[in-house]
């Protein structure tokens, strides 16, 4: 596997994310596999932000461990990131902005002094154009040809005035040529692949997948890192015919989604942990009224406001236990945009089939970072059956009829002759309340128990319908990683490194974290030797769930809760200790 990685850094407001994404898109259009990490802080101006675009001729699933080219828009970027450069790497900076006086670059690292501001002044007094010349130089060093870079810039700035586009083309060309005259391309430059690849972040994949699954209504309240789900859907609302409602709070958002679903529209909401907390009571209402709803929780580091722009998998306990009493639910946990697309398609199907809330656990690392997706991996032709499945004017219709599966025929308001009441109170097969004048009367005591059994029985079907655990890698490896959600990415990359070091490992990943098919899980673990649980939270929440549900105890754990994603080298180091 050959790879090359570029990193750009500066202050919030410098345009770092846009710069980095342009580089990532250059690689993806070359047909390379790309992971783009957007590292930022909860400030709009200032601070320190950086973007890393890692490209490879083989699949990459994480940001990787090193960089080859660093474009530093400020001195802090050099101080923070130069140590991550591989030997042979280059630091690009403009000596008009700062000097490297007093900084000793690591051995084998050279500096390219690039007059970005002077180049920008050729075109405009707007200093932001310096980024284009820096990007041009970076492209030269990283092997992104101008015939790839220029269309990226044209697409990126296409909505702006013509002169802005041409300034960017000119400045990037100048930067590229300056670098060609004053530096050597990286020795890690990769040849072009075949077809351009799709590049998307997890939230775009979730929104796209929701629309493909037939979602027509999204209600959401802004919260990092879930907001870009709403942004994508809002930008496509009219062309796709999806109503997007920014609600007054998360309470309203989930209730709107449940109301819309009740009235016959596939609906969802999305949020992060704090907003999810506000949705907890409504989840139970969806469970009790047996109204399908899909809820995305894109986790960030908690507790409370925590680290709003940093990642964590700390909400598993919350999602498992959200809501008073008991009702069936499933929690899907995709690890990358390709899986996120499929997971939300699955979530909508499961929500409809089982008439209960389905949760999709994302996190900042998956939601906001870019990754290449094979076009063939995204099938937009998802079957979307009509929700009007019960014939109107039916005789003796019972909305909550007892059935073998626990799923009852669902009428939609507007259908003649099927009127029913959806009640958050306990109710009988017709939806009549048994919570007040009937409660405690023996006949209705029995009825309550039957109705609980009916709802909870859905879990037995649900557990067979959710995506099962997946083994990856060589069978019979001496060490098996256990992971869920975005952490799977760094584990996969670590497995490649370990394999190259002659240490085969495999992975048991859980695209569904709940419910777990205990027998199947135990059978899977029977095929493992040593295991290492890798999770981004303090207490090993999935490990605990696994033990509770299956009796499988994972004693070796690699837990991370500093807000940063796992890096492959961290996993490699721990694996080497064990194996």
């Amino acid at each position, binding site marked *: 596997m050959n790879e090359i990685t570029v990193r750009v850094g500066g202050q919030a407001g410098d345009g770092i994310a846009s710069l980095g994404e342009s580089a990532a898109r250059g690689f*993806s*259009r070359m047909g390379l596999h790309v992971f783009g990490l957007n590292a930022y802080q909860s400030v709009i101006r200032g601070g320190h932000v950086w973007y890393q675009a890692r490209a490879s001729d083989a699949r990459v699933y994480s940001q990787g461990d090193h960089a080859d080219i660093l474009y530093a828009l400020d001195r802090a970027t050099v101080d923070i990131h130069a140590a991550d450069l591989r030997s042979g790497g280059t630091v690009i900076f403009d000596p008009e902005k700062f000097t490297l006086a007093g900084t000793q670059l690591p051995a084998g690292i050279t500096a390219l002094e690039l007059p970005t501001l002077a180049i920008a002044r050729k075109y405009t007094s707007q200093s932001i154009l310096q980024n284009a010349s820096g990007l041009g130089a970076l492209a030269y060093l990283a092997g992104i040809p101008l015939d790839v870079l220029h269309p990226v810039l044209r697409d990126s700035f296409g909505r702006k005035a013509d002169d802005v586009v041409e300034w960017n083309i000119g400045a990037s060309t100048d930067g590229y040529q300056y670098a060609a005259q004053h530096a050597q391309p990286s020795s890690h430059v990769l040849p072009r692949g075949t077809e351009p*690849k*799709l*590049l998307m972040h997890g939230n775009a994949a979730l929104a*796209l997948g929701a*629309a*493909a*699954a037939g*979602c*027509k*209504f999204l*209600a959401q309240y802004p919260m990092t890192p879930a907001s870009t789900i709403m942004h994508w859907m809002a930008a*496509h*609302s*009219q062309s*796709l*015919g*999806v*109503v997007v*409602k920014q*609600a*007054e709070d998360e*309470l*309203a958002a989930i*209730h*709107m*989604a*449940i*109301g819309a679903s*009740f*009235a*016959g*529209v596939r609906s969802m909401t999305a949020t992060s942990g704090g907003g999810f907390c506000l949705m907890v*009571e*409504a989840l139970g*209402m969806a469970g009790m*009224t047996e109204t399908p709803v899909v809820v995305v929780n894109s986790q960030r580091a908690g507790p409370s406001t925590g680290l709003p722009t940093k990642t964590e998998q700390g909400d598993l306990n919350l999602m498992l236990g959200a809501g008073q009493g008991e009702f069936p639910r499933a929690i899907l946990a995709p690890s990358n945009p390709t899986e996120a697309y499929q997971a939300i398609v699955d979530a909508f199907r499961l929500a409809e089939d089982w008439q209960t809330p389905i949760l999709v656990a994302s996190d900042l690392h998956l939601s906001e970072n870019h990754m290449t*997706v094979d076009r063939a991996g995204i099938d*937009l*032709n*998802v079957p*979307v059956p009509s929700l009007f499945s019960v014939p*109107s*004017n039916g005789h003796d219709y019972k909305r909550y009829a007892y059935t073998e599966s626990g799923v009852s025929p669902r009428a*939609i*308001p*507007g*259908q*003649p*002759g*099927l*009127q*029913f*009441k*959806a*009640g*958050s109170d306990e109710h009988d097969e017709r939806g*009549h*309340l048994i919570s007040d004048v009937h409660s405690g009367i023996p006949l209705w005591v029995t009825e309550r128990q039957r109705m609980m059994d009916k709802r909870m029985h859905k879990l037995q079907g649900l557990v067979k319908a959710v995506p099962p655990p997946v083994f990856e890698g060589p069978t019979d490896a001496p060490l098996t990683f256990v992971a869920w959600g975005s952490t799977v990415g760094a584990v996969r990359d670590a497995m490649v490194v370990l394999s190259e070091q002659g240490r085969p490992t495999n992975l048991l990943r859980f695209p569904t974290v709940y419910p777990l098919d205990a027998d199947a899980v135990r059978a899977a673990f029977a095929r493992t030797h040593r295991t290492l649980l890798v999770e981004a939270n303090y207490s090993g929440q999935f490990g605990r769930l696994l033990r509770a549900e299956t009796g499988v105890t994972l004693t070796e754990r690699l837990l991370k809760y500093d807000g940063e994603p796992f890096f492959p080298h961290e996993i490699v180091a721990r694996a080497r200790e064990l194996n």
Partner: protein
Amino acid sequence: MADSSTQPLPAELGTPLPLIGKSDTKPTWCPGCGDFGVIAAIEMAVKRLKIPSHNLVIISGIGCSSNLPHFLSSYGFHGIHGRVLPVAEGIRWANHGLTVIGTGGDGDGFGIGAGHFVHAMRRNVDLTYVTMDNQIYGLTTGQASPTSTLGQKTKSTPNGVIENPIDPIALALASGATYVARGFSGDVKHLADLVANGVQHHGFAFVDVFSPCVTYNKINTFDFFRQRVYKLESAGHNPTDLVAAWQRALEWGDKIPIGLFYRTDKPTYEDLEEVLAAGPLALQPAGLHGKDQLLDEFI
């Protein structure tokens, strides 16, 4: 007005559409409860408008009054405390061919649900919201509510309420509601007129109803209101005059106005949400079949 002619599914030809009536569940309210007058008025209003019961959804929250949907033959959603309006909005946006009536109490609407109340009104969602305002928490056996009178002694305020009550009419005017009315469950016919006009109104219609709790509120009784209420339409009030509406909203004491305070015509949320121009969302095509060009933006 919610267009009841836009039916989500074609009714079988020749079958008369059943109008709303009582369901097979009897009300569980205390004998003499004000809510009996409110449900009678809603039934009367909906019947008069000839809205078929399958095209009507009544949404409620939690509290004595929120059991109301169970007692009528329409579709109903009996949700959780304070969330009547977001559920009702979701239903309206999913199918704006349906007539949507939200119901609930003063605690539900002006306490735990106050935020939703304000926002639903500023959006001018085309639905009718009827609050059964008894100025007390009844189902939890008699605590102060957001509309309890200053000084009123309740289980939670044994020395008297020390917070000023919310004025739902003034709050509705301030929030941009386009139909603001107050009724009295002791005058069902008048209340039915207010509800029927509210349902016909193109936009958010708010009808706050004095609906006395005969068990826990010994101050705001039927007699209390009978002695005080007067009808705005008999007093020369011009309901298109916002300033006059404010003046009437602030009246409280020996004379308390009921009737229509304010009415204005503005585009509804559904009018302005362009996706809904193609018809009820529930009947629009869904999914991305054949839209493969959508992926080009990711290249």
